[in-house]
């Protein structure tokens, strides 16, 4: 592909839930562009008939019985939360 653009970088940042400054956008456009250009090395290889590897071990879906197990208490789970109220995580408003 042609060089990645600043607008693309801003779009990807939004998808990744990152707020990046103009300055960072500039730097990121260069660095990502370099890395993506380098990654295009892979296009030298004909992989039309190659299966993708998602995992190196031959594992089938691993299931356990659907039984409730004791894990972390609600109180404990809230311990590290930046904000909480009435036994729940508290966040800023979701709807404007």
């Amino acid at each position: 592909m042609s060089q990645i653009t600043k607008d693309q970088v801003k779009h990807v940042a939004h998808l990744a839930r990152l707020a990046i400054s103009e300055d960072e956008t500039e730097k990121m456009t260069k660095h990502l562009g370099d890395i993506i250009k380098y990654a295009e090395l892979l296009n030298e290889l004909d992989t039309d008939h190659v299966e993708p590897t998602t995992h190196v071990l031959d594992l089938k879906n691993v299931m356990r019985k659907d039984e409730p197990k004791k894990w972390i208490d609600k109180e404990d789970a809230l311990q590290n939360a930046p904000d909480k109220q009435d036994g729940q995580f508290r966040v800023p408003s979701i709807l404007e």
Partner: protein
Amino acid sequence: MSLFDHTLTELQDKLHKKEIKVTDLVSESYQRIQEVDEQVKAFLTLNEEKAYEKAKQLDEQKLNDQSILFGIPIGIKDNIMTEGLRTTCGSQFLRNFENPLYDATVIKKLSKSNTVTIGKLNMDEFAMGSSNENSSYFSTRNPWNTDYVPGGSSGGSAAAVAAGEVFFSIGSDTGGSIRQPASFCGVVGLKPTYGFVSRFGLVAFASSLDQIGPITRTVEDNAHLLQALVGHDEMDTTSANVDIPNFADATKQDVKGLRIAVPQEYLQEGVSPEVKEAVLKALKTYEDMGATWEEVSLPHSRYAVAAYYLLASSEASANLARFDGVRYGVRSEKAENMLDMFKLSRSEGFGDEVKRRIMLGTFALSSGYYDAYYKKAQKVRTLIKQDFEKVFENYDVIVGPTAPTTAFKVGEKIDDPLTMYANDILTIPVNLAGVPGMSIPCGFSSEGLPIGLQIIGKHFDESTLYRAAYAFEQATDHHKQKPVLGGVR
């Protein structure tokens, strides 16, 4: 002489004969940390009070058939969850994560073996980096020369062992993060076969590549530590249910008839002359012991770094979505709505390299680019894996350098991501293929920096790695060298 200059077998003997107590071992650690950690900067968090408590408790136990790890001071990489002990992953995002709610499976296993946790070790943020300079706290230094990096991302884990601050440590390896720092710091580091050690409680970077593994001074002690870590775990769906051999026993067999493959790609340009020379000398040592070696090819090696950065970053972009400022970690004070809370918390909490990889991964997985980048990289991964399978049809192990050079200077490569990535060119293919690899000391550069020999084996054939590594170690004395720090030792 430090107590940590002994082997595990010797220490257990001393404990048994009451020549030493566990408390002595623990104070050996903290004294050494006091002496040298200002220079080495390996530790992010110390566990001093609880460690002495545990030591006292162990000293009151009757010694009978205790584990060979009984009472031994260990350091833990800071991306491994330790209940009630701060776990930051080297990131500002988790600077206030003082109270992890559970122990990783490996920590539970170590507790059962009665090791004593000395503290949490510095690392590149979320294990992304090859020099420890991406830690958002401070850069760990190489004990052999503190102007140099210790390698990464398990730089703190390797440096702490080399500096004698702990007897041994555990790290994690996604693209070389145990082996490369082991090589730079002159210690023994093993990345086990994917699936051999449970990843439950290891803060995920790239789930199809991550493995936890042991870092030690000697090969035999490495085998003992791995023994305590391996095993099937129902909490990790990628954990393998396989037979577990006795790794230390494997060291007893000589290497007569061992068939070594040396990939020509691992000795090509980019590998420094000193490193190449040390590896060739090591091969001569193997010949003298009755092993044979031949040059082979892993033809897709040159594509490994590109495939790795696409795959690892893609997986990371998904894994690191959990850091959203809701349940743990920091939350930006500036956000007025939910979306801004995610964006600002993440932007304030993550460092440059982490953002770069999340961006790369998000891009590679995004609509319109998925097939061209992510899926392409997965296909290339298949080719790389097949390269290894072919070689292992005719050979027992693959041997080469761990890293193309010895440690580089702090600040030397930090501004250029691609130069930094090239550093992992010899370790990355091993993770992509899921096979085990280890680094052992095999010499020193003219500047006095350690050189690492990498030994790679078949899936779940760590025994042969230990056999090959132990024979070499016994035939040489590189592992007996120790760095001099602050005029001590």
